[in-house]
């Protein structure tokens, strides 16, 4: 059994060695910095962006705010719609073909339309992100509620639980884990939608910065932004895992 400390140390050594090798090969011209950037260049870009010039804070907060608004709005409406659909199966059947059609569509293709409707501000990227998050959380909500253990329902009915009691004490809690995995995925996709929309056109946001850096051939900046987005996605996952552990201690 390897100790966790040793594993962490191993990762650190590996990353430092890789970065050093990249820097060295970049300096020797083996890896062309014009196309791959260099670790020192990436670091200095991030230093300027966050410490000296501080311009990245603004874009970072736009991206995070848009993803957060889209996530909350999309998830809430999706959960409510999911509850409505499970209560009114007829309505769900009627809406199903249209929802499937919308869900099958590559949502990023909506960006041009949303740009015309909502402009270059935060509205259009929120709309794109909601169009992704909504369907994911909706599917999870419906699946979670449908997946309730029939033994639990039989027992509750036999013991005299009212439909309301059954819903709040049995159906809804049993759906929480499935809804939660939908939320986790929904948040990742909210970020995807926001960055995707920003790449195409936006006033502010990391995606917009990335597109600009790419067009000016600032490869250190591009790499720095990719690193930033990866870290952002990772912290979302870590935070959701932590929340799930807190929320679902019984699992």
């Amino acid at each position, binding site marked *: 059994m390897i100790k966790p400390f040793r594993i962490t140390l191993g990762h650190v050594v590996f990353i430092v060695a890789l970065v050093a090798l990249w820097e060295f090969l970049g300096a020797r011209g083996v890896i062309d910095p014009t196309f791959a950037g260099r670790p020192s260049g990436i670091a200095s870009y991030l230093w300027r962006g966050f410490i000296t010039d501080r311009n990245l804070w603004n874009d970072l907060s736009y991206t995070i705010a848009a993803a957060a608004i889209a996530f909350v709005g999309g998830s809430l409406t999706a959960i409510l719609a999911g509850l409505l659909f499970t209560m009114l199966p007829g309505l769900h059947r009627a809406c199903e073909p249209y929802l499937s059609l919308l869900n099958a569509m590559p949502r990023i293709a909506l960006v041009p339309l949303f740009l015309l409707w909502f402009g270059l501000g935060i509205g259009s990227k929120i709309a794109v992100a909601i169009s992704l998050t909504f369907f994911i959380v909706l599917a999870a909500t419906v699946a979670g509620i449908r997946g309730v*253990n029939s033994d639990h329902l039989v027992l509750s009915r*036999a013991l005299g639980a009212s439909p309301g009691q059954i819903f709040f004490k049995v159906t809804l809690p049993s759906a929480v884990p499935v809804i939660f995995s939908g939320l986790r995925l929904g948040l990742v996709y909210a970020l995807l939608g926001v960055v995707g929309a920003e790449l195409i056109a936006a006033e502010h946001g990391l995606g917009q910065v990335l597109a600009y850096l790419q067009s000016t051939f600032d490869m250190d900046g591009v790499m720095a932004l990719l690193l930033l987005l990866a870290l952002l996605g990772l912290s979302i996952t870590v935070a959701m895992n932590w929340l799930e552990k807190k929320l679902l201690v019984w*699992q």
Partner: protein
Amino acid sequence: MSRPAVAPGAQIAGLAHAPPAAVDLPPSIAIHDLTMRFGAGTAGAVLAVDNVSLSLAPGEFVSLVGPSGCGKTTILNLLTGLLKDEAEGDVRVLGKPPHEGNPDIAYMLARDSLLPWRTALDNAAFGMEVRGLPKRERDSRARDLLQQVGLGDFADKFPKALSHGMRQRCALARTFALDSPVLLMDEPFGALDAQTKLTLEDLLMQLWSAHRKTVVFVTHDLAEAIALSDRVIVMSARPGRIVADVPIDLPRPRDVRKLQTDHRFHDLYARLWRLLEQGASAHD
């Protein structure tokens, strides 16, 4: 086929510990000429229960045994009122026709069906909670029952942390925490290993002696039926008919483990086994 008379007074000889007054009380459960068809009126109608009459005195423990598909569970579901299909005949629980959510009935299933997001305590209190008992009262009663089933130290554990036997103990606590006089059990120990099963049967006997409920116990395990019951009703394969109504005159209180080596127990077993075989082959 001869159907035994079902006069409740005549068959509680085994109820040595029951108060004599029980004989004079009206039956807890009375089923008269019950016939049940699934999909009645259609070409594929299945006769599930055929002309069954059965009566249980208050505090009596009666097992229904028979091959699968003999209508045992159908009868239980009719008593709970969960089964809405039309049935012929008359069914009464404490004099009233069955209705869903009848507070006179507590119900227990083969699988523990504990709610995994609730602690043992909250699971034990679940039945009382849906019946609207105040929190303080149901918590103290649930704690008391957990103590009685030997889970006193596990009140705050989630079902995931409990073994199968412990989960079914918790389900027993949930069932006996209700003050319903009638208890319907559908193979509650069917999913347990042999040793755990004996332990839980013993526990059920203790709880039953302490709480005095009328029990209908569905099982396909003859030994279990004999060890627990005052009477064993043997049913035939579909359509379910009563083949025999056998009083179990083993003295109470019973020790389920000791019974395993008792010759009277084995005589009864052999007798019931023959009846069961006859019932199973009656329609071949």
